[in-house]
């Protein structure tokens, strides 16, 4: 067991330890992105035949797989890891994960076996959630316990780079398969290939991990008969440990999670949904920034061995809290300057009965917000329109004022009939005109069709009227690529990714160093998964609810700013630096 700082290159055994642990984590990320990238196809294959009630239940179960089962997996496998060893536990987690992923690839769809298909799929997702909960803590603990003191930050940082590798690997396999067999075949059966291919990664990972030795710290502890008999009680039943678990959560992982989520996922969401940048450009911009940023995981991991974990992590959170507003505003100016100008110039007001307005927080995605006020705010938030709120008398349907133009949100049958008659007149005129304008005729036909459908007529009318009013107020329907400043966008996105590397690079080492060997796996896994899963995972829905509520597309940033700020204060006041801690002192 190497316990002293040594100025020597990494040994072959240490390289193998890092490689074996990181490979498993790459594998997890691969699976993680597969599900995200293929969600639409998987939903079509497995959930298309469900009625609304069943779809609701499956949505809740899918939510549970990410938000409840993962922390539970952290407890289950953390306990095992502290009792029977790190090596065998994270061997089990990767087997569970790999087998579940592979089975998804060969699972018959809804058309073949009916409701059993989505039931089995969700069970597999729950098993994966369980395995995920145990994997990261195991990999981090295993690497840290093999690392010499003074190099734990640098060694564990390698695990943190695997997110980018897993993302790119999944995209390469997906696109390679799609290109090889064609879009139609891919949607039909080809989507299974990336899941089946994962068996290769599983076999390699298991083979390598089987050849590894148990963590020397755990072997020593076991030989001395000092392993914990009840890691859960020790971790969470004793205040001296529970206090550190809580501090690790709110003073470290919560802030780390929101900075990470904002820098990678929210930035992409903001580019495509708020700034109306096309998906292809947004993907390539984020990918370039991730590639530039990834080496900084190692840089900050290694730097944390010199200057400490705490200053780097908390500086990342502080910079995020202080700079998110100006940075995201700069992103708007660089990516969609027309939108920035329209927001500055136009006055949009939602006039609504406050009793009709909900805080549109929808973590499971199953709630429906259908009041006129909620619909008005959804529409405006969707169009990235900044607006103010005015109170309307009780019972009055909401209206939207764009400058001097008033747009109704709800429409009566008479309104729809009048609009339909007008659309039919326009269609007739277009059909009679020579030469014929095929595009205009197609659009007019669609408009008549939509207005003829009772379910969609009101929404169509609102979209048309609001669209026209916003166009008149110079709101762009999408970003003008001629004005898109690629270099500035990449610089901004890279800055956001570098903040991610500041908070995430050193965190594994810090969490490991906060707890004694006998309860390390259990104690570090839970705050990690609650912090990242809950605080990070709730970011998109919370941010959207805040944006819709307040009428400012930047106000969603208050969520990561407040959480990151709280982490700076709590972490700064109550968390001790750990880089020089002897992690075996209490063994």
């Amino acid at each position: 067991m190497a316990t002293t700082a040594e100025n020597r290159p990494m040994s072959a055994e240490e390289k193998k330890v890092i490689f074996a642990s990181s490979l498993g984590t790459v594998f997890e990320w691969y699976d993680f992105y597969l599900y995200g990238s293929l969600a639409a196809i998987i939903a079509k294959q497995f959930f298309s035949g469900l009625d609304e009630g069943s779809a609701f239940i499956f949505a809740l179960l899918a939510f549970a797989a990410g938000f409840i089962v993962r922390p539970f997996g952290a407890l289950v496998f953390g306990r095992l890891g502290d009792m029977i060893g790190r090596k065998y536990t994270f061997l089990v987690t990767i087997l569970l994960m790999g087998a579940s992923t592979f089975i998804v690839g060969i699972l018959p769809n809804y058309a073949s076996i009916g409701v059993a298909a989505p039931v089995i799929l969700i069970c597999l997702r729950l098993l994966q959630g369980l395995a995920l909960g145990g994997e990261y803590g195991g990999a981090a603990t295993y690497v840290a316990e093999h690392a010499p003191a003074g190099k734990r930050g640098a060694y564990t940082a390698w695990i943190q780079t695997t997110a980018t590798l897993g993302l790119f690997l999944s995209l390469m396999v997906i696109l390679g398969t799609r290109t090889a067999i064609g879009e139609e075949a891919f949607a039909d059966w080809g989507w299974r290939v990336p899941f089946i291919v994962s068996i290769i990664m599983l076999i390699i990972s298991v083979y390598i991990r089987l050849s590894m030795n148990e963590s020397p710290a755990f072997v020593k502890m076991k030989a001395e008969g000092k392993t914990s008999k009840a890691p859960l009680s020790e971790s969470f039943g004793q205040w001296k440990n529970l206090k550190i678990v809580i501090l690790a959560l709110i003073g470290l992982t919560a802030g780390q999670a929101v900075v990470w989520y904002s820098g990678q996922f929210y930035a992409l969401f903001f580019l495509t949904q708020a700034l109306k940048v096309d998906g292809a450009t947004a993907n390539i911009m984020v990918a370039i920034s991730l590639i530039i940023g990834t080496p900084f995981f190692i840089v900050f991991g290694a730097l944390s061995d010199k200057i400490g974990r705490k200053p780097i992590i908390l500086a990342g959170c502080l910079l995020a809290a202080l700079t998110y507003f100006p940075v995201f505003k700069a992103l708007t100016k660089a990516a969609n300057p027309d939108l920035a100008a329209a927001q500055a110039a136009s006055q949009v007001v939602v006039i609504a009965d406050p009793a009709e307005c909900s805080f549109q927080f929808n973590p499971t995605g199953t709630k429906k917000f259908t009041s006129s006020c909620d619909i008005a705010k959804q529409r405006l938030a969707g169009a990235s329109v900044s607006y103010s709120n005015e109170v309307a008398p009780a019972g009055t349907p909401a209206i939207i004022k764009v400058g001097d133009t008033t747009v109704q949100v709800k429409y009566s049958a008479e309104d729809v009939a009048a609009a339909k008659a007008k659309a039919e007149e326009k269609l007739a005129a277009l059909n009679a005109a020579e030469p014929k304008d095929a595009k205009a005729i197609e659009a007019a036909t669609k408009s008549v069709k939509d207005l003829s459908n009772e379910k969609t007529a009101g929404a169509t009318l609102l979209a048309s009227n609001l669209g026209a009013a916003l166009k008149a107020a110079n709101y762009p329907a999408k970003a003008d690529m001629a004005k898109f400043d690629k270099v500035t966008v990449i610089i901004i996105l890279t800055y956001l990714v570098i903040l991610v590397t500041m908070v995430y690079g050193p965190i594994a080492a810090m969490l490991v160093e906060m707890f004694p060997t006998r309860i390390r796996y259990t104690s570090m896994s839970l705050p990690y998964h609650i912090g990242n899963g809950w605080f990070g995972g709730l970011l998109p829905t919370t941010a959207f609810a805040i944006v819709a509520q307040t009428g400012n597309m930047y106000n969603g940033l208050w969520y990561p700013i407040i959480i990151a700020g709280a982490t700076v204060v709590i972490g700064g006041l109550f968390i001790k630096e750990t880089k020089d801690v002897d992690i075996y002192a209490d063994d």
Partner: protein
Amino acid sequence: MWKIAVGFAIFAALALYVIGKGGDSLDMSGEKHGADAVHVEPAKADASAPAPAPAADASAAK
């Protein structure tokens, strides 16, 4: 270390090529949860359409 750097550079170049070729059909937004995971035809937002009210996402729970 230089071998890792070269390997990463090659991997990154390949990835950028793939992402560039994939266009907007690639979804890099991470794992889907809740209704996002079971919804058959996710609506695409445009200027006049309502914003997608995103469900929570445990993307970061790795």
